[in-house]
């Protein structure tokens, strides 16, 4: 928690309404995101109970599982969900664009748009991850066959859940996190996990302040939880009798139909308030202008979507239960790089985020008071253009002489600190030597060197390309990390008929025992 954010929280509490902590939107918002509000059965291992799914506010489709402990119904739900999700994904696979790679020597294609999934809270992301895990190894053949779309859905949900861990990705977003990235509420992080309470602070109903609206949103009787966990009172008083009525109806077609309709009614009642909150959240986010670097990060999501679609098309297997040592190290490295770059890009895009870094001394803002744009350094083998500028700032400068600074206004340019001189009134004079971003000649093109009078933000944060680390091939995994993975059976090995791979080690698990 930065002091600036903490201060915003204190201000929100005093003002009775959430306060902005961003001036631009730091995530991509699709014009037609797929909103997914789901409920799980209490006590079960991620058993779906119901879901409200759709890509427009007036296009909510309700899916329910009348008997969540019934295996067939669970996979029927998965097939039904696949019937909505997979066509939605396919709708983004129409047009692709060519992207130059390897310094223009090669070209690859990526889709010009990509799908975006929105869920209410981080628990909703976990629900999709586990639902992906429970479906991606299923098979359309064998002992417990499922609809062929079920394992495919599982692989896509797993893809989205993995993407959600990637800092800066907008492929799968939890609404509570998307909102609190841009606004500070007057409540704690624990309470911020509750979507109705967050929106209570953001957009309190007339006559209520944020604290009261949030407190009211905590009462499940007037505001059902945003899932996937249900309200125990609802379970005991409403759902249990409705599920029992459906089970009791057995073969009585009319009774079963009416019991099903009743289940639909009560579950829709629990889901609809959250559905409406989701679209209100989308509206609030859409009102913010996007940050300059959001588009670039979304291109990363489009790349990932394209790559996974191609992997699936090429008959690639489902994601493993657990990554091998090398794959895990590569993934961790990628996430760390993305995390660093995301933090820098948000600061570059948003002065309110940069202010957090100014407070900790990683950045300062000052006025250019002197500039020598024609200065050439000829001490080396050949002369190079090295303009110098002097910046005067009232802020504390916590960087040493020799440090390299960057300015969001000219991200390609480096500024080396040459002198630091304390001046009157607690000001500091900083002399900087510039390199890069000024063309190849000995004269800087206009606008590439800051002019006297320009207000400049300088920071140690760099948005420069971070080179990828080098990792061994999986078959060269060092012994410190368990050594090379045991030789997998050659894919050509035919599985003897009737001998589906079963057992703890198998990824298939098709004969998983069911309650």
């Amino acid at each position: 928690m930065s002091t600036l954010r903490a201060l915003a929280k204190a201000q929100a509490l005093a003002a009775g309404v959430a306060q902005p902590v961003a001036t631009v939107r730091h995530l991509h918002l699709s014009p037609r995101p797929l909103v997914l509000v789901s409920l799980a059965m209490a006590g079960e291992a991620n058993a779906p109970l119901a879901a409200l799914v759709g890509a427009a506010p007036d296009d909510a489709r309700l899916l329910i599982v009348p008997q969540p402990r019934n295996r067939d119904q669970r996979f029927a739900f998965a097939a039904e969900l696949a019937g909505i999700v997979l066509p939605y994904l396919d709708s983004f696979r129409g047009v692709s664009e060519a992207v130059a790679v390897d310094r223009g020597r090669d070209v690859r294609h990526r889709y010009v748009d990509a799908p975006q999934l929105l869920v209410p809270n981080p628990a909703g992301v976990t629900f999709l991850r586990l639902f992906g895990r429970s479906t991606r190894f299923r098979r359309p053949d064998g002992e417990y066959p499922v609809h062929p779309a079920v394992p495919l859905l599982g692989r896509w949900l797993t893809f989205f859940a993995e993407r959600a861990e990637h800092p800066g990705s907008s492929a799968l977003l939890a609404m509570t996190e998307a909102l609190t990235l841009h606004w500070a509420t007057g409540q704690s992080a624990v309470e911020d996990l509750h979507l109705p309470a967050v929106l209570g602070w953001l957009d309190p109903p007339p006559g209520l302040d944020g604290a009261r609206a949030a407190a009211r949103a905590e009462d499940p009787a007037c505001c059902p939880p945003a899932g996937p966990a249900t309200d125990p009172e609802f379970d005991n008083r409403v759902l249990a009798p409705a599920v029992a009525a459906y089970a009791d109806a057995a073969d009585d077609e009319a009774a079963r139909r009416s019991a099903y309709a009743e289940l639909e009614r009560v579950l829709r009642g629990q889901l609809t308030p959250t559905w409406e909150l989701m679209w209100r959240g989308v509206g609030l986010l859409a009102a913010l202008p996007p940050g300059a670097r959001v588009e670039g990060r979304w291109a990363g999501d489009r790349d990932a979507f394209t790559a996974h679609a191609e992997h699936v098309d090429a008959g690639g297997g489902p994601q493993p239960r657990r990554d091998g040592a090398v794959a895990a190290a590569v993934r961790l490295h990628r996430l760390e790089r993305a995390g660093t770059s995301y933090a820098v890009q948000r600061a570059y895009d948003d002065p309110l985020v940069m202010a957090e870094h100014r407070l900790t001394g990683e950045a300062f803002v000052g006025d250019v008071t002197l500039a020598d744009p024609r200065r050439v350094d000829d001490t080396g083998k050949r002369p190079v253009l090295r303009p110098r500028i002097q910046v005067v700032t009232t802020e504390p400068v916590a960087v040493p002489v020799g440090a390299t600074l960057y300015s969001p206004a000219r991200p390609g340019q480096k500024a080396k600190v040459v002198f630091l001189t304390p001046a009157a009134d607690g000001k500091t004079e900083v002399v900087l030597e510039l390199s890069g971003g000024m063309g190849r000649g000995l004269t800087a093109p206009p606008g590439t060197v800051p002019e006297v009078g320009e207000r400049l933000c300088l920071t140690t944060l760099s948005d420069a390309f971070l080179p990828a680390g080098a990792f061994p091939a999986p078959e060269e995994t060092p012994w410190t990390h368990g050594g090379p993975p045991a030789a997998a059976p050659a894919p050509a090995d035919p599985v003897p008929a009737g001998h589906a791979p079963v057992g703890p080690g198998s990824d298939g698990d098709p004969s998983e025992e069911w309650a």
Partner: protein
Amino acid sequence: MTSTAQRLAEIRGDVPPRRHNARTIAALTGNPGCARRAVLDSAGVDKPKLAERVGFPARFGQSRFAITRGNAFEAQVKADGGAELLRLVAERLGVDPGGPATWTDLGADDRPGQPGQPGQPDRSARSRAALAAAAPTGVGDDPAALFDHPLLGLDVAGQRVHLEPDLVAARLAGRFHVVEVKSFPVIDGQADPGKVAAAAIQSAVYVLALRELLAAEGHDPERVSSDVLLVCPRDFANQPVASLVDVRKQLLVLRRQLDRMARIDDLLAEVPAGFTAEPAADPADLRRSLLSVPARYAPECLAACELAYFCRHATRAETATLGRPVREALGGVATVAEALALAAGEHAGEPEQAEAAALLRAAARLRADALAGQTA
């Protein structure tokens, strides 16, 4: 009746003390610095009722579906005289059970609602006798033995608390192991960390009680292993899988808190004379009374303490109510109003707040600048 017990009885009012169970004892370790909670828990006050009376009812409901599923899984695991359970436990511990185990259900003949309930003291004595007689010798050649539903005792704040765990004490490889059956899943070797933590601290309560029992009977308490076994469903199916959890850390925390509650006199010395928490009292009096004993509310209380909503409301204006990280980031300033006043430069604050005040002023200036769009 000692003066302490008398004092606690006065606080509690004209009702019997509420019974502790492993869950409530485990919850005691959650916020050990909270005096309000320590006093109420020591007195055995009916906190859910109290919370309702002061207008902030707790929300700790349990779904019928979760209970049904939990019971079904437990019955499945314990079926056939614990044969499957023994296999799982022995396999996880890497020992050979050496033949089938004996199965003793210490709660068998007086489940609630059955006629002729012999009452707890008898059961307690029976549990004590059976477990003491079976105390492991430590050499490892005792035959495997399983004891279901032992009734254990623990001293909490000077009163004897009886615990009726749904656990199995397994004598295996020369030691007793606490085995808990939980119905949350372990998926690809991973379970919900919050649920594992809660199960671990509960198990630690049982380990402690079991150790005290052995010690009281003249046996070595270390014969009760600090490695407990959690038996949970594997992945999305109903097949049980056993995992080892080391609860040594939880044991330390628990002992520390129980010792603190044993020194309840020190705590009571700070409590004003007329303090009452009798749920039957007038709600306004109750609220006043509760506020006279300091609490240490943190957002984490919401998941653990029945009185949390009341305390949250009472500490609305404090920075810690927004979470400890927020308070720290605000330089440790206690109230929101003071933090905002320091940030606005309305006053310089106390000398020891100089650093915090400077930080807050700088933050407020930067925030205002950025929101006004005056930056590079």
